[in-house]
């Protein structure tokens, strides 16, 4: 239980927000930020821990969103069941793309390219296939009942997405402490060395990609229920692939709370930009791009890295003392 303590404390603190404020603006902002944190946590497993940079996480987000929406609207399947199926199919798509690209030995830029291409193929298919509503998109009927995964108040949505972020963060913690997590980090640091030591790198990357896709698909399913509308540009568009990697990179890739920190910072910056320009499109993304380059240039380990450096510096005098004492004994 102790290993989950930090996660549980953060989640408990965040869970009190709707009790303090009932402002729809605040809650809406936090729901979207948490949604990005969830999608980003999915990217973080594969990109942050595993070092495989995907530029096409929209493939999983969109699959989750479309499955949830289409199953309800066209086949009358319950929204909660659709949600679970959406996650499962998202994971399957991740496993398929992963199997194809890792078996062919695609790494680095090539992996980024092929994931981007898969997401684009899905986008074009979704924009013409009749089952997805083609260019018009799919609108989920308003049905404000908890059984239909729709709620009157934003607070319920807020707690659900917070719960999803909490579960995914704890899952990430379990992976961190497991043999699988150690293999994954080994793959990131030096794939050839990991392979030489007997790690089956293809299986490890494939497992990471499948779980990663499932988490990101959960974000897509939630998006469909929250906004009740999905089209090809939203579901499979490049925007979500970019936000999925922006949050963990800025927050700190390969850290437990990186995606959450990054999503809050990125979304706050976006809102500030909108306030400053009166909602003219484009400027928020210009700022995201600048922050991304700045973080890569100045703080490659993201906000979490900066924070841990500061803590290290605060602790430094004692550490230095201990080290000098240790040397004295030697």
């Amino acid at each position: 239980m102790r290993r989950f303590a930090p996660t549980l404390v953060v989640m408990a603190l965040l869970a009190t927000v709707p009790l303090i404020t009932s402002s729809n603006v605040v809650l809406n902002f936090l729901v979207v930020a948490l949604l990005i944190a969830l999608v980003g946590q999915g990217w973080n497993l594969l990109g942050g821990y595993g070092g495989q940079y995907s530029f096409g996480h929209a493939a999983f987000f969109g699959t989750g969103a479309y499955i949830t929406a289409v199953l309800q609207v066209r086949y009358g399947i319950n929204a909660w069941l659709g949600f679970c199926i959406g996650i499962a199919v998202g994971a399957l798509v991740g496993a398929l793309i992963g199997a194809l690209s890792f078996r062919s030995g695609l790494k680095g830029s090539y992996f980024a390219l092929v994931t981007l291409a898969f997401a684009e193929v899905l986008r074009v298919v979704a924009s013409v296939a009749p089952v997805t509503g083609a260019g018009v998109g799919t609108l989920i009927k308003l049905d404000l009942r908890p059984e239909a995964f729709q709620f009157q108040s934003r607070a319920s949505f807020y707690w659900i997405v917070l719960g999803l972020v909490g579960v995914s963060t704890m899952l990430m913690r379990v992976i961190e402490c497991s043999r699988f997590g150690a293999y994954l980090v080994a793959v990131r640091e030096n794939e050839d060395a990991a392979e030489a030591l007997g790690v089956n790198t293809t299986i490890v990357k494939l497992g990471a990609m499948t779980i990663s896709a499932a988490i990101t698909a959960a974000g897509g399913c939630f998006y469909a229920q929250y906004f009740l509308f999905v089209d090809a540009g939203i579901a499979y568009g490049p925007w979500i692939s970019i936000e999925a990697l922006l949050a963990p990179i800025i927050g700190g890739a390969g850290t437990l709370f990186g995606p959450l920190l990054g999503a809050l910072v990125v979304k706050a910056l976006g809102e500030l930009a909108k306030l400053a320009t009166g909602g003219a499109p484009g400027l928020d993304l210009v700022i995201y791009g600048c922050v991304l380059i700045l973080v890569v240039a100045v703080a490659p380990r993201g906000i979490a890295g900066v924070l841990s450096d500061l803590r290290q510096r605060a602790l430094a005098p004692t550490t230095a003392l201990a080290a000098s004492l240790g040397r004295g004994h030697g």
Partner: protein
Amino acid sequence: MLSPAILFAAVLNGLMTGAVYALVGLGLTLIYGVLHIINFAHGALLTAAMFAAFFAHRLLGLDPCVAAIFIAPLFFLFGYGLQRFIIGPAAHGDDRNILLVTLGLAVIIENALLYAFGADTRTINLPYAFDVVEVGPAFVALPRIVAFIAVFAVALGLWLMMRWSDTGKSIRAVAREKLGAELAGIEVAHVYAVTFGLGTACVAIAACLLTPSYYVNPHAGNAFVLIAFTIVVLGGMGSVAGALIGGLFVGVVESLSGYYLGESLGQIGIFVMFILVLLFRPRGLFGGPA
């Protein structure tokens, strides 16, 4: 089914479009061949150059083909600056960082254009835009023939420069053996930036050739990004001849699959080909051993 005449026209039009694709791909492959990075900002730079060509026509009344003479050097300098002062220093030589920095640049350029000019789609009206030339049983628009010839002129010029000039020689030296080139007194950071500038200039010329027949908006370049990647992967990363052949090939495939499958599914033909090549022959159809 299709008559031979329509098939001929489709192939011919595919070759014309393919030539401009080839030029976009040429810039990408040049950068990859020397810097070993995939420039994700390539599409955004193309869009920026299309806007430059558009405003050169709107404000100064310059024909896009004439404007290319000014826009290409301008974008060379822009690309040089990007690599020398942003991408190089920010990436710390790590491949994953370079991916992120070029992606960040793409996001910035594209959205700065969106912010400055809005999402409106603009087109240039040229008096000769709809003039056609008879080639055998088919007709081809005049701007596309001009573009076709211009692309090969640029490719030839580039080849001559790489072959005979000192700059070209130092670029080839860095591509072949970076450390050795550095020891011989070549300034690698400068050569990298020059290469990036040349790649950007190629894209700028492609943009000028596109504007007479293509629309301009902040997302216009995106349509070409994956096509350019496809060409470059198909032709073998870093291979200039491969990019030319790959470009023509992709143009023909797109044109034919457009005829058979319809406009929007025609795109899928390219993407599927791209994924298949990446998966099964990542060093390209014409590339040597990896």
